[in-house]
């Protein structure tokens, strides 16, 4: 039978400080020119946190503006630029890199028993390209930012007076970082597994990284060309989507969404990878079906490419195409459902321990199912006619991106905090943080379903007075969510310096990253690892790890 426990504090053990990847060298140069995948993961983690904070500040200003109809704290042009830059910073500077570049980089080689990724110098290059692209977007921000929406729809994006060209160029640069990381992870997974480690004995987080790498490597080039054309059209006035010169603006949407729909799977697959690891560890159980998780990951990766037209139901595509996309969009939801059932069944007959990561999992479960079902709802073409471009869609995707992906990111931050830093975070503060995050999130975005269904359009600066009460609730929720994030990042920062020293395996997990000390040595394992058992075998006790 299933048992549930509140987390027991880990007994204090203070092993003598020894050499790890963190203290092997202290110079700025050793960090700036590192080819160690763990240090590169840290560089990405720190940068993406700053990106999230910036995107979050934009969101708070937007929500505060909506406290009352008409002008409240910004004018309409600024509002348009704010929601555009919020979307761009959140999607490309935070969400897409967040889990793969920080946790994927750190953990992927360790989980397959490798010393590093296949191309360590390319890995460092990918970080600097990411940094350059991010700085370019900041420059665009300083130049006033873009006001076209993160989707850059033509023909407006061809003529907008805002800083379109530096913005698209910055994203163009960022895309190459994503592609290089994707290629690196794919080749690493294929060629660098430890002796005897077959595909179906790897930790499932590796499958998630592999799946997301396939999507991001194949989809991002299409974004690159779409944005390149927008940039060329804007700068040189070539009119590739200008109807007067033979152009068709709907074709832009086809190209943009061909990337941007798989992009949402880029954002959710890593989160799902975190979740399965968290569920198994804190249920002390193997997954209900390893292959169900592995294959559904591939299913999402491939079928997700075929669904992009559901963003264009009312754009003027043909009835035939809309019908095709509607059916395909329903199909891709099946794989997510398989995962949800597998996660829940995994807990059955396990010994569940409710730690902070597990609390985030419970939040994830509820919000992902809620958000996912509303996704199936808007994929229904006849219903989408009513909901398209309203707050209903905005609520749907925030339930997935914030309620699911960011929640899973927070779970990952806590779950792997001991492994990465060698310290424990304060569990009770984690409980408070998780509760605040969930409450703030729900209060912000649930009312938006109601707003959208009642007819509140998205990206509108002004609104009719009857929408105000729900907007006020949503804004209060946003401030609570903001406070929750500050609370969480603060105690994590303090724990970095003052937390209890962590043992190699504080969670009594069987996954392979816990077979090495916390934090790991520079070359990941003290001796060449041979993984004699599978990563979810809770029928045997966890091994002793010697530094």
């Amino acid at each position, binding site marked *: 039978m299933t048992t549930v426990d509140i987390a027991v504090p880990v007994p204090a053990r203070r092993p003598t400080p020894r050499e790890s990847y963190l203290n092997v060298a202290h110079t700025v140069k050793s960090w700036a020119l590192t080819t160690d995948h763990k240090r590169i993961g840290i560089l990405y983690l720190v940068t993406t946190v700053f990106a999230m904070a910036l995107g979050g500040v934009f969101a708070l200003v937007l929500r505060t503006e909506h406290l009352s109809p008409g002008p409240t704290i910004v004018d309409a042009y600024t509002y348009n630029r704010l929601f555009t830059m919020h979307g761009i910073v959140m999607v490309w500077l935070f969400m897409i890199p967040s889990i793969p570049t920080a946790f994927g980089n750190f953990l992927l080689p360790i989980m397959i028993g490798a010393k590093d990724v296949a191309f360590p110098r390319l890995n460092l290059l990918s970080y600097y390209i990411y940094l350059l692209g991010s700085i370019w977007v900041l420059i665009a921000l300083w130049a006033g930012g873009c006001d076209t929406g993160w989707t850059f729809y033509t023909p407006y994006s061809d003529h907008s007076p805002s800083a379109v060209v530096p913005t698209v160029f910055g994203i163009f640069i960022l895309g190459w970082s994503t592609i290089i990381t994707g290629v690196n992870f*794919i080749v690493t997974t*294929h060629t660098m597994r430890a002796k005897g480690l077959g595909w179906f004995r790897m930790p499932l987080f590796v499958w998630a990284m592999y799946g997301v790498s*396939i999507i991001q490597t*194949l989809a991002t080039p*299409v974004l690159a060309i779409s944005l390149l054309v927008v940039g060329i059209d804007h700068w040189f006035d070539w009119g590739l989507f200008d109807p007067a010169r033979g152009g*068709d603006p*709907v*074709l832009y949407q*086809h*190209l943009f969404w*061909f990337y941007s729909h798989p992009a949402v799977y880029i954002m959710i697959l890593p989160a799902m990878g975190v979740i399965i690891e968290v569920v198994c560890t804190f249920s002390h159980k193997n997954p209900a079906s390893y292959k169900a998780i592995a294959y559904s990951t591939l299913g999402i990766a491939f079928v997700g*490419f*075929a669904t*992009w*037209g559901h963003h264009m139901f009312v754009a*003027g*595509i*043909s*009835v*035939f*195409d809309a019908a*095709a*996309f509607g059916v395909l969009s329903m199909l891709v939801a099946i794989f997510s459902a398989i995962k949800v059932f597998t996660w829940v069944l995994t807990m059955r007959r396990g010994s569940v321990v409710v730690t902070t990561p597990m609390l985030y999992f419970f939040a994830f479960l509820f919000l992902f199912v809620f958000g996912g079902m509303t996704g199936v709802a808007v994929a229904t073409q006849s219903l989408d006619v009513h909901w398209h471009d309203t707050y209903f869609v905005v609520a749907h995707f925030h339930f997935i991106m914030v309620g699911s992906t960011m929640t899973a990111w927070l779970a990952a931050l806590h779950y792997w905090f001991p492994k990465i830093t060698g310290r424990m975070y304060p569990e009770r503060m984690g409980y408070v943080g998780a509760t605040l995050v969930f409450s703030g999130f729900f209060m912000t975005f649930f009312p938006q379903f109601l707003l959208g269904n009642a007819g509140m359009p998205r990206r509108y600066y002004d609104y009719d007075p009857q929408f105000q009460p729900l907007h006020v609730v949503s804004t209060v929720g946003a401030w609570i969510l903001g406070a929750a994030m500050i609370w969480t990042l603060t105690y994590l920062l303090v724990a970095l310096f003052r937390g209890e020293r962590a043992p190699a395996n504080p969670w009594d997990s069987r996954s392979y990253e816990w077979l090495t000390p916390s934090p790991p040595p520079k070359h990941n394992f003290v001796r060449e690892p041979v993984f004699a058992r599978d990563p979810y075998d809770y029928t045997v006790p966890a091994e002793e790890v010697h530094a």
Partner: protein
Amino acid sequence: MKEPTPRALLLTLIVLLVLAGVSLAFRFAHLGDFGFAVALGIAAIKAVLVALVFMEITIEKPTVRFAFAACLSLFALMIALLVGDIVTRSPPPLGPPPGTEARYKG
């Protein structure tokens, strides 16, 4: 499969140049819509030759070939549904714009 010999490489180049010549000749034939299929068909044969002989794709492990094939399939998917949209659109409510009647036939 082994790496191609210099003779195989030269032979391939000659075939490629001949095919290019054939394609050029067809430019002056009056094939109408069929011309599209002929020109792209010859181009596809040339591309496959380059991939097989010059790029030695046959020597690569199956995983690599599958990876590249996946990319081509995605391209095909993009074309299928994008073109599928254009060719199945109904005329706008006020009738087809001048010069586009042919597109909405049937």
